[in-house]
């Protein structure tokens, strides 16, 4: 049993690394819990402006996770995820407008609508990949504002629709707009953390890296593409639903091609993270950077680009172990 000897030598080498990883994981969980408690207590300390901005930031972080999910599990890049975010946002607004139901009732509907839209898009494009799929998603994003304006009697046209109903009666609107997206982000991240250990996740990862091997073990490529796109679009729609609630309005201007591009930027900035902390970095970049640069006039695009470059290069310069923990969703 000499191969056992070989493997024992390997496992002995790795045992130290394993213990170190366990300690590091515990530390990460500890820091994460403290961070979450701080976020939960923040509205008591900060003013309305910050709670409003952070509420948007949490929703954006979920949208960023949806893009990162497609990258991590599907190996594909989307430049059109704003469409799925819009699907969630408009579902909430329309359910309120026509059925008079609040966010907690319309949120599951929004997730289903997003997932369905993902499947409807993924099926005809299931044989596309790489840059071709990215351009196909971009076409979606380009078409969306026109489609919304075409059906202006339903979508509210340029003005859009309002989301006014309380989701949690008894709590001030300001706090609802903060805590619901935060809760959404925590729930989505936890669900994805559990998903990472599932057989479906393993199958998706294997088909991404070794399609022939995965097919030989009964994983179908079309299933993988449809599943990946449906889940990603569903998460994006949840983000859209919470975004519409936090901003209390939805309009075509909120979902242009730039929305989709910024989501991709946020995903890159977060290192395609599926964790709360990593996605929040992307969300903060997306939400706060334009505000911080607001006074820079013509310099805004240049400074934004420089900030983007700085964050991406800075994160990639971090040690491998830190980056792995930031990315989350690991075993």
């Amino acid at each position, binding site marked *: 049993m000499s*191969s056992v000897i070989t*493997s024992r030598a*390997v496992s002995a080498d790795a045992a130290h690394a394993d213990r170190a990883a366990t300690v590091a994981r515990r530390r990460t969980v500890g820091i994460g819990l403290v961070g979450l408690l701080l976020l939960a207590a923040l509205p008591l300390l900060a003013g309305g402006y910050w709670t409003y901005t952070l509420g948007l930031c949490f929703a954006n972080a979920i949208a960023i996770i949806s893009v990162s999910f497609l990258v991590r599990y599907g190996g594909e890049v989307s430049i059109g995820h704003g469409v799925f975010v819009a699907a969630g946002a408009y579902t909430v607004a329309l359910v309120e407008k026509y059925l008079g139901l609040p966010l907690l009732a319309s949120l599951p509907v929004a997730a289903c609508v997003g997932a369905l839209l993902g499947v409807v898009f993924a099926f005809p494009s299931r044989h596309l990949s790489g840059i071709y799929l990215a351009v196909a998603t971009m076409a979606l994003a380009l078409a969306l504002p026109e489609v919304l304006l075409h059906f202006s009697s339903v979508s509210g046209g340029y003005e859009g629709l309002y989301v006014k109903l309380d989701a949690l009666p008894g709590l001030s609107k300001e706090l609802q707009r903060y805590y619901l997206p935060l809760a959404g982000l925590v729930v989505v991240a936890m669900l994805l953390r559990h998903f990472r250990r599932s057989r479906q996740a*393993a199958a998706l990862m*294997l088909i991404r890296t070794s399609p*022939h091997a995965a*097919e030989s*073990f*009964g994983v179908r490529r079309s299933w993988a593409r449809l599943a990946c796109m449906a889940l990603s679009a569903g998460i994006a729609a949840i983000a859209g639903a919470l975004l519409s609630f936090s901003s209390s309005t939805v309009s075509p201007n909120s979902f242009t091609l730039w929305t989709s591009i910024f989501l991709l930027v946020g995903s890159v900035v977060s290192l395609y993270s599926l964790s709360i902390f990593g996605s929040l970095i992307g969300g903060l970049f997306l939400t706060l950077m334009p505000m911080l640069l607001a006074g820079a006039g013509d310099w805004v695009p240049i400074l934004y680009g420089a900030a983007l470059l700085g964050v991406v290069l800075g994160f990639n310069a971090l040690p491998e172990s830190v980056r792995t923990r930031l990315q989350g969703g690991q075993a």
Partner: protein
Amino acid sequence: MNAIAPDPLVVHDLSLSFGGIKVLQHVAMHLKAGEITGLIGPNGAGKTSFFNCLTGLYVPQHGSICLGAKHLERIPPSGRAALGFSRSFQHVALCPELSVIENVMVGLHRQSSAGWLDAFMPLAGGRTERAHNRDLALAALGRLGVAEVADLSPAQLPPGVLRLTEIARAIAGNPRVLLLDEPAAGLNSVETADLSAALKRLRAPDLVLVVVEHDMDLIMDVCDTIHVLNVGTLLASGSPEQIRHNPDVVRVYLGDEDA
């Protein structure tokens, strides 16, 4: 005992070409269950392409493949996996982001039933199945003597152990047809001897086991029947002894020294 006779894998008149290049020409083989069959030949003989035809990754232009009475021509790779086909690859095809045991558990994908709810939520059914699959995967790794590396990442392991992990993935689901493509590549001589013993233990009355390999000592040691491919055609078939003394095989592949 099992009253159903084990099904052989019968390949009849199989031809495969890419454009004008004829990869396989009129290949016919009867691969018996309960035996270990060796498939040898020089590089470019069409051995891996033959495996790809068997698993459905390549669609041959001509010929038939039957598992017992079932014709496989129109069945896609995933369907053949459901019928019990399993394989390892010439180039290790493990996912670097999954741990060793997670990679092996993919071999149980086709016979798992945990749904999407189980995937996202810690429900009892999903947890039980996952624990059961983990036990099966650990047992498969144990049969190859590498259970200790179960929770490591493939990036931490040498090529020989990765090769054994791939074989463990292939056997985890108790396949009916097991195709091993150069399982000894990257293994040192001691590991190859262990592999040889492990392959002999894999022999089962209802398993069609086919091994493509360049290590002649291993092939001659474990195989009951050997088929020799040369530039896409079947050059010879027979017992290890017959193949060892076949003048055509000696001339084309084994060489005088090995004979």
